[in-house]
């Protein structure tokens, strides 16, 4: 269970660029919740994810993951519990290192790293099996440098790296936004399958309203650093994209401003 209690973050405080990114956000995720998070540009979605991941200290509030207070843990300490996939496919993997080297580094997430040879025979077999599960043919490319893979392959690999050692929380920050539509669909299917199989608790930021309703079990909408909508269950199942947009307008008092959201809504 993830509890965010009154978290606040103001960037560039006391300057002309002051920006309230997170305004007393409270959110509780039960185990197995797969939250899709939407909102216009600058609403604070990615900031919220980065706050949970520990990329910057909070101004106020606390973050509790499965009973452990993680508010003051550093990014790498939280990584033991949290798996992440980034928007940019280049961010989640080390380009000059091989597929198997990337995997073994992820396999050691939250484990003690030692002075012993990282990749041995049994690891190879295990990685090959894991990669075969992606269905992208990566199982035959264990010793390929990751920089030679396509964006979609790298993103699928990052997803595997984030989940092969089951995380207590999975954070997906628009992880298919920069992929071409066909690849995006493959990675999205993979995401849903992995989350379901492992019964993961996850937050996925997306700009696609349709996807926000079709994937996951719960939808949260943000606006100007606050949560303006939080729906699940029957209420969510009955909703379509237009309902979601009008609810958003009612709750936030503004129209959805992002072109990408509108485009995605029309599509």
């Amino acid at each position: 269970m993830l509890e965010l209690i009154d978290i606040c973050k103001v960037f560039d405080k006391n300057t002309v660029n002051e920006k309230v990114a997170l305004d007393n956000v409270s959110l509780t995720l039960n185990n197995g919740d797969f939250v899709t998070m939407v909102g216009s540009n600058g609403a604070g979605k990615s900031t919220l994810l980065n706050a949970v991941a520990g990329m910057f200290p909070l101004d106020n509030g606390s973050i509790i993951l499965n009973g452990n207070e993680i508010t003051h843990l550093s990014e790498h300490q939280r990584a033991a519990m949290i798996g992440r996939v980034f928007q940019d496919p280049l961010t989640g993997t080390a380009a000059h290192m091989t597929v198997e080297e990337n995997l073994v580094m992820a396999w050691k997430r939250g484990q003690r790293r030692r002075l012993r040879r990282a990749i041995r025979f049994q690891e190879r077999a295990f990685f090959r099996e894991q990669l075969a599960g992606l269905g992208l043919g990566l199982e035959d490319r264990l010793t390929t440098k990751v920089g030679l893979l396509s964006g979609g392959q790298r993103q699928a690999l990052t997803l595997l790296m984030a989940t092969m050692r089951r995380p207590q929380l999975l954070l997906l920050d628009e992880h298919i936004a920069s992929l071409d539509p066909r690849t995006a669909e493959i990675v999205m299917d993979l995401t849903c399958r992995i989350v379901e199989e492992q019964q993961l608790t996850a937050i996925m930021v997306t700009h696609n309203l349709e996807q926000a309703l079709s994937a996951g079990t719960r939808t949260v909408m943000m606006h100007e650093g606050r949560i303006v909508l939080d729906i699940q269950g029957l209420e969510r199942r009955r909703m379509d994209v237009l309902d979601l947009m009008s609810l958003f307008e009612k709750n936030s008092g503004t129209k959805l401003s992002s072109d990408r959201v509108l485009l995605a809504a029309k599509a």
Partner: protein
Amino acid sequence: MLYALAGTLEQGLLYALMALGVYLTFRVLNYADLTVDGSFTTGGAIAASIIFAGGSPWLATAAAVIGGLLAGLITGLLHTAFRITPLLSGILTMTALYSINLRILGRANVPLLRADTVISRFNSWLPLDNIYGASLLGLIIVLLAVSGLYIFLKTEIGLALQATGDNEQMIRAQGVNTNHMKLLGLALSNGLVAISGALVAQNQQFADAGMGIGMIVAGLASVIIGEALFGKRTLLQHIIAVVCGSIVYRAVLALVLRLGLAPTDFKLLTALIVVIALASPQVRTWLGLTKNSRKRGSFDA
């Protein structure tokens, strides 16, 4: 001629340890560490003063390594604890080391003529008087360093260190404290540089406060020459290329010396070599010689 060859080989091998250190920071850790100029001298100064005082040369060399490790650690702490930029933290340590090195030496120059050094000890184990003694010792130590570095970089910790240089965000998301990796990399790198300084001082039979000046550029030249001539497709190839690059670099210097260039012009020549190597991709694009527009190993100092 034979003497020149032996001289080039032993210099190439002894300085190769320094080049390996430069490779570890500049290439593996992607950290432009300028501590090298200082830590090389620190290695030489520590070894020379212990030997001069009558200490064991092996112990003196070991103490030099510890000095180098500490120098690297200080640069690392300046960067990780105080967020000083890599370039500046290296310069600060290098500058501070200049005074410290003079303190260690106690004077501008410590001579080791006819002193008991690791090289004279090693030579005494060899049959006959051998002009390749220093080269052989250098080769053994370089082989140990190359295999040690390769094996280390393939361990769990070694991979995390490589990833820190490759993609810091990625490896932090996998739970690695990248600050620790930088400290480790900088310490190991300057440890290697200091062994090199200690051995060079024993080989040239003196240590002075200026022996490390321009060392970073010499190290870079070795790395770049090695990469260009011997390739860097795999990790092992890359490491061995750096060693070979160091030997080629010393051979080039010996050659131009024979052609009549003054030894004092070496640094200018070295800087030119590095400039040419770094500028060539850009010049090639100006001339329209690049085959594709993909970004190639651009160099960030």
